[in-house]
């Protein structure tokens, strides 16, 4: 941690220490924060688990005593000088003024704190005998299974949907889809299922036909109390289409009956909630049935009158996914157009980087390495750094290797 523009503050004291002086003892309480200006300072603490002594030397310009001052708890270490040492002593208020002028200092500290927190968390898990080397995808699915088994379907639904969102090609995607549908059909009045009619409830692997959702199926819901109007929902529940109040499907049913005096208008209503179509499309994609996934994504992109933020988000995701289906089908021009359109229409989308990466992939596939390289380079430089950046870097390395 480097210090900021210290000279600007006024009430900060410079203090000189002889060799071996104790700046503070473990368990002392104090609100002062120190910056090492000259000389050396050694911090001595004990490991929480073994009691082993740990020594850490402070580098010139670094802060120490920060956490305990900020958190207002006793010092966790003893600070002692080595040789003649000069320290700046800051009351908490001055420290605050200082860091407010230099957000970068705060960021560095946050990073260090966050690492410490992770380390402690890891130790806690070890003591509680929780395994650390787990596969998050599988565990996420298992969370869904836990809630499903205890009958808390709303929460189960959330976990399955997240699984489908993050791991649409994962080993549990078919199972997750199956659960999502089972929960949905359960919520449609218990006994039977509105979604049975032609729709593959328990076997999402089967191809789905456009007319699988006959509108007459909805008649079963006539006796159901009308569902509450769909509320605007947080983006975290973008894909919520299930159990709870405000379910998209339920809303649509209401719409349908509400406009029953105008059957022509009703016929134009989408037959399924678009979020549901989206999941079906993802499921088909994961089964390498790209023609059908393409057809469903197209259907989503043709739908008008998006009802809420959640549907808009699905639309946005479909705009990206349709490009992937085109790419898999070898329809490169269409894929290029789809990814470019998506970036134009949704420049703020979290999928922009991924779309750029896919543009690179398309160009690489059609043997235009220069264009591919320029897209990959863009991706590599983009924040936040994640798996897509790594993939792009990998592709760049491959292209360079081939060029030699």
């Amino acid at each position: 941690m480097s210090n900021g523009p210290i000279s600007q503050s006024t009430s900060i004291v410079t203090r000189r220490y002889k060799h071996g002086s104790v700046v503070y003892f473990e368990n002392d309480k104090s609100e002062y924060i120190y910056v090492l200006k000259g000389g050396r300072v050694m911090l001595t603490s004990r490991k929480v688990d073994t009691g082993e002594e740990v020594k850490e030397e402070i580098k010139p310009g670094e802060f120490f005593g920060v956490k305990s001052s900020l958190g207002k708890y006793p010092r966790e270490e003893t600070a002692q000088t080595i040789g003649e040492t000069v320290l700046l002593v800051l009351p908490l208020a001055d420290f605050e003024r200082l860091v407010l002028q230099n957000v970068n200092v705060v960021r560095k500290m946050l990073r260090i704190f966050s690492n410490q927190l992770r380390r402690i968390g890891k130790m806690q898990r070890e003591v509680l005998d929780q395994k650390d080397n787990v596969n998050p995808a599988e565990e996420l699915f298992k969370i869904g299974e836990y809630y499903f088994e205890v009958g808390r379907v709303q929460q189960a639904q959330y976990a399955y949907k997240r699984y489908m969102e993050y791991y649409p090609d994962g080993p549990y995607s078919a199972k997750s889809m199956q659960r999502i549908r089972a929960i949905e059909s359960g919520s449609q009045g218990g006994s039977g299922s509105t979604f049975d009619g032609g729709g593959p409830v328990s076997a999402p692997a089967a191809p789905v036909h456009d007319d699988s959702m006959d509108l007459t199926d909805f008649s079963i819901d006539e006796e159901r109390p009308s569902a509450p109007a769909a509320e605007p929902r947080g983006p975290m529940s973008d894909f919520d289409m299930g159990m709870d109040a405000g379910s998209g499907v339920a809303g649509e049913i209401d719409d349908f009956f509400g406009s029953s005096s105008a059957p022509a208008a009703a016929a134009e209503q989408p037959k399924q909630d678009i979020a549901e179509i989206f999941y079906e499309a993802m499921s088909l994609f994961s089964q390498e049935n790209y023609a059908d996934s393409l057809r469903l994504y197209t259907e989503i992109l043709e739908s008008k009158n998006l009802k809420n933020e959640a549907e808009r988000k699905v639309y946005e995701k479909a705009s990206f996914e349709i490009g992937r289906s085109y790419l898999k089908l070898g329809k490169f021009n269409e894929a290029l157009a789809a990814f470019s359109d998506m970036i134009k229409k949704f420049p703020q989308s979290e999928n922009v980087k991924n779309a750029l990466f896919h543009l690179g992939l398309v160009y690489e596939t059609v043997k235009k390495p220069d264009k591919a390289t320029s897209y990959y380079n863009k991706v590599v430089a983009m924040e936040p750094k994640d798996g897509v950046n790594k993939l792009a870097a990998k592709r760049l390395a491959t292209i360079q290797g081939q060029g030699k």
Partner: protein
Amino acid sequence: MFLDAKLFDKFGVEYSPGEIIFCEYEPGNEFYFIQGGRVKIVKIINNTEKTLDILEVGDVFGEMAILEEQPRSASAIAMDHVKLLKFRRENFDALLQGNPQLAYKLLIIFSKRIYDAKRRLMILLLEEPQLKVMDVMCMLSEQDPHLDLQEAVTLKATMQEVANWAGMQVGDVQKILTHMNQLGKIELFTDKIIVKNLRDFQRVVNSRRKNMMS
């Protein structure tokens, strides 16, 4: 609140009771400030959902996502109608630049979290269940600097909370607390525990801890 009300227009999200805000093991890219309602932090351990914490207005959660993308270590579920400010990692830098007060607040929150996590680890590392329960009470007393430990102290905690802190089954904690109650060491209520001589608990725990370390 220390945050600008206008922030809610831009970053506000709302959840109904029972709704999951995020789920254990899903990738984490957002962190949250609670503006209204309560949020339960839970984890599924040995096929049981355990409540790790209950957070209220002014609290922050999901903060580990600020600096790195890692799977969530626990789930967050709305207990009431919950209002949150939700920030993404990508706009974190911009957010800090525009709101240095927020950065400072986060620094304080992290400092406290680290201390609390270490303190909890110390409890978990004790071997005997009785000592764990006693140390939870010591820890609870440390959270209120105004307590006079010369006298009987009142700790606001339920058996379930003590069990969560100690990483124990509530049934086991109940046995221990009931026994202490019978011995006159504590008085047990549904929502609080009165400890007659907390100093005594501290002595016992500290001497045991010293033995462990030597």
